[in-house]
């Protein structure tokens, strides 16, 4: 019975550590996925702005509806701020929404800075200029996404192994 409990405890410790390692590894994967989703969102926003000339609240809503949370939430919350009638400009709405949702994302502070850098220009210039700024932001996100992807491979493996090995080490100590 005692042996059974020891083995069970050992497995539980290894499992918990492996799950924690997987969780950290997943956050690396989530960051890459979310950066790609933001880039897609900005591409769609460019289409809405330059081809459809849709009003910004409508454009943000449409883009947000097509993206999974938390990325879609940023676009939809920005639209809601704009429609609130509280005297919020498009840039302020975008900045507030990005800051609100940031804690729920896997993004890093520098990723957020790329999104915030768009705020002063959002909606306040003509189509050609909007296209330039949206493309610039999308390109900067692409660069960060590629760096994140390169980092992701090694980091994912490391955290998975670290989880399992850490669990084994701890388990053996407890035995």
């Amino acid at each position, binding site marked *: 019975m005692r042996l059974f409990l020891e083995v069970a405890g050992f497995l539980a410790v290894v499992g918990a550590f492996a799950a924690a390692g997987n969780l950290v590894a997943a956050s690396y994967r989530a960051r890459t996925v979310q950066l790609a989703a933001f880039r897609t969102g900005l591409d769609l926003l460019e289409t809405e*702005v*330059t081809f459809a*000339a*849709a*009003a*910004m*609240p409508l*454009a943000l809503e449409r883009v947000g509806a097509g993206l999974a949370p938390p990325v879609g939430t940023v676009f939809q919350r920005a639209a809601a701020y*704009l429609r609130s*009638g509280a*005297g919020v*400009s*498009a*840039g302020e*709405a975008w900045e507030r929404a990005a800051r609100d949702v940031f804690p729920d994302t896997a993004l890093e502070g520098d990723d957020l800075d790329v999104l915030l850098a768009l705020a002063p220009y*959002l*909606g*306040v*210039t*003509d*189509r050609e*200029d*909007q296209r330039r700024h949206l493309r610039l932001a999308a390109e900067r996100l692409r660069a960060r996404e590629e760096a994140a992807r390169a980092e992701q491979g090694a980091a994912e493996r490391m955290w998975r192994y670290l989880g399992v090995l850490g669990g084994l080490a701890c388990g053996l100590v407890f035995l």
Partner: protein
Amino acid sequence: MSPLETAVVRRSHGLPGPTRRRVSVRPPDRSEILPYLAPGVRRPLERLGDDLWARAEEVRLRRGRPLSLVTDTGDVWLSPSGLPTEDASSAHVVTADETMKTLSLVCEGSVYALEEEFRHGFVTVRGGHRVGLVGRTVLDNGRVRTITHVGGLNIRLSREVRGAARPLVRWLFDRRGRPVSTLIVSPPGCGKTTILRDAVRLLSDGVPEFGLKGHRVGLVDERSEVAACYEGVPQRDVGLRTDVLDACPKAEGVFLLLRAMSPEVIAADEIGRPEDAAALNEAASTGAAVIATAHGSSLEEVAARPMLRDLVRGGLFRVFVILSRRSGPGTIERVVDGPLRGLGPPAGGGAVVP
């Protein structure tokens, strides 16, 4: 009285005639304007007394200069607490940030969607209020492409005055109750758009108490000021039988309405381009009556303008209404009844009322 405006015929078929009167103007709802203003500018206007707001015609924001209100008695500066002041140094100074933010709010964060409006120098917001813009112009082949570095905004407050055109009923309809082609002439700020809107409503709905039936009206609202459409829906009462073509160039709009909506009356604000004349003449040739407005302080002045001369002298219009703000905006100064084919020396005919 102008030598052109000599009485020949006085029309009277039991309908009310005009009197020189001050039109009762209802101020626009403040809540229509405030959401478009940056908070720093919004505050003084929120605190502004109702009596002063009732007299307000324009709100002017000039970057780095005092916030001002244009009223029927002149300009006043506004202090941060919303009190009128003659001392500019105690007025609220509009910052660059407030100007940009107000611009963003006016455009609903979508300057790119309003390129045509920027080219014309103004944006019409919900409620039909017109926001004029000044700044640095960007030219494309010698034509204004857009305005950047916006340094000032002028919010012209739109007013709906039901009954403003009622004194004109006897001229808007002939003895058989058919619409009569009418040109409303006035200098800026004298209420010609307000009169046109109400005239369109009367022509569209008819005036049942005088047995006048309504007619199908096609309104080309190039500046979105008459019907004040928001997302295609008129915000002002322009009548039950009025079809509105919003933000469409007048000449193109007239042809489009003639083809698509078979109007009995074509209405347009601020005519003055050569293509307008051709389109309105085409409308008249189909049997539709035309009601339009033009800038000018007198018929002679309008008739002297190359673009309008042919329209005024060519017999398209049967009635000319001259407005002023002598007794406030919308003062019907004079009505000239009859074609002015002989306009210009020597003077032609036309009934002058009163």
